[in-house]
């Protein structure tokens, strides 16, 4: 079986996944932005792993999927988690709480926002993770960085959690606000309400619920849980729970690929 991996890097988790499958006798090719050409030439593999949410990998994912070659995770669900506005409504549809957002020109934001609306977080509208994310305490700190419009989100004061899930297993860590998943974090027992939240999210994702992660903040004042960032394919750098995440996700992907291939043959 031939497997393609769409990934920004050929090292890290993508490299480990490649090695895992190669040890099982599969042929694996990693496509990075340096060598990804999106046309019929991609259709020779049996299935693809969409490791990155970069626009061009998403295009590749949509193209491959439209040509009946399985792509895991699903490109549409992955895309919905890339655009902040779309992911806001996606999570809302799943019944989860998200911080309110504002989106406009810097001038209109200056007119409409009051000092009590701060602190806010400035985020790129297309993107996820911590890149380009910054807390701002006043309207003077809004920097458009050449963009016409600025996306701002209410900053939730409280405890920040990085929550991974692989199948039914949930792994919860406490993280420093605004850091990515690669900084060292403290593993904690998963609180019941976080476990319930993950269950709700996985139920909503239905057949696309193999693995992922959510950045969650428990608001200090209300104790409510806000989802501040969803992720369809984390690196699992801080997986501090039982078993190897690589082995677990590779088995799940393989199983899903077989199901999707059988479905498309029918």
């Amino acid at each position: 079986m031939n497997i393609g991996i769409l990934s920004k890097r050929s090292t890290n988790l993508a490299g480990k996944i490649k090695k895992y499958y190669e040890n099982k006798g599969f042929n694996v090719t990693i496509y990075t932005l340096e060598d990804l050409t999106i046309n019929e030439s991609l259709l020779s593999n049996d299935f693809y792993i969409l490791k990155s949410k970069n626009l061009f990998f998403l295009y590749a994912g949509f193209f491959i999927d439209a040509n009946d070659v399985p792509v895991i995770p699903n490109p549409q669900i992955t895309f919905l988690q890339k655009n902040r506005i779309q992911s806001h409504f996606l999570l809302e549809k799943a019944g989860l709480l998200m911080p309110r957002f504002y989106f406009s020109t810097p001038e209109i934001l200056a007119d409409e926002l009051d000092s009590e609306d701060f602190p806010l977080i400035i985020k790129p509208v297309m993107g996820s993770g911590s890149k380009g994310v910054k807390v701002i305490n006043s309207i003077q700190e809004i920097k458009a960085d050449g963009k016409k419009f600025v996306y701002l989100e209410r900053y939730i004061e409280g405890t920040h959690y990085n929550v991974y899930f692989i199948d039914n297993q949930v792994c919860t860590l406490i993280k420093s606000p605004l850091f990515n998943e690669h900084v060292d974090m403290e593993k904690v027992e998963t609180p019941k309400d976080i476990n319930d939240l993950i269950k709700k999210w996985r139920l909503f994702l239905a057949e696309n619920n193999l693995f992922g992660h959510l950045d969650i903040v428990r608001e200090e004042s209300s104790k409510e849980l806000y989802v501040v960032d969803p992720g369809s394919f984390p690196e699992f750098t801080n997986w501090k729970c039982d078993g190897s995440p690589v082995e677990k996700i590779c088995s799940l992907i393989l199983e899903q690929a077989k199901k999707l291939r059988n479905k498309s043959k029918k």
Partner: protein
Amino acid sequence: MKKIGIIIDKYHLNHKVTDFLKYLKSIADVKIYLEESYFLNSSEHNFDEDLFFTKGKGDVILGLVKLIEERTSIPVINSFKAAWLAINRFLNSTFLRKAGIPVPDFSLNPQGFKPPFQDYIIKNIVDQGVYKFAPKIIEEKESMRVADKRALDEVDGKEHQYNFLYYQKFIKSKWEYKIYGIGENVYFYKQLPVLINPNKTESREKIDEIPELKEYCLKAMDIMDIKVTSLDFHKSQDNQFFLTDINCTPNFNYLKDGYKIVADYLLEQAKN
């Protein structure tokens, strides 16, 4: 009177909808939502319109359309899906081809990698800004190679955004067929391709219905959930039509009484 909200950007408001708004205001209550002065707040909205019409494809417009679609049952023409697919050339080519509509071969390549066909046109990847097509002809020996200046600027110029180029196989055609779809009605025109005559309207003429193009147009509108559109077709030397472009903010001023046709269509939809 029915209430119609127009979601628009400054460019379209100032240059493209004068007659349309004048007429629409005579038959409906019209409220303008201008992208450059709109404050999109996910928690506060109070819409009482019967219908929204989008004339623009900027990020705030897309965000507002998404919010209306998610939080209300007010119809939006064109929808978020329509706009999103129309601006992403690679995606619309992918889905239209899957639906059986002939589109020229296409390829998205990192800079320096040539596509698997000889004659091509390089187009911008995300067709979102306000821009006039500025072709640069690069003929190499027997090949026909054209590039839109903006596409090259996105890779090499000051507006660097990507390292990728979108290639569409170049279909040499005597005429460019300009088809307008408004609801279930389809209107047929042809003009000399812009590469032959940059003045689009000079050679434009109304033509009789071409059943094949009507079928493709309605099918494309269905696939993309697009209710008001213009499509460009080229006809190859072996008489096969290819859909080269689909637009979610068509300039209906080029269509005879276009402003009236669109406004009447919107009012009819608002009543349903």
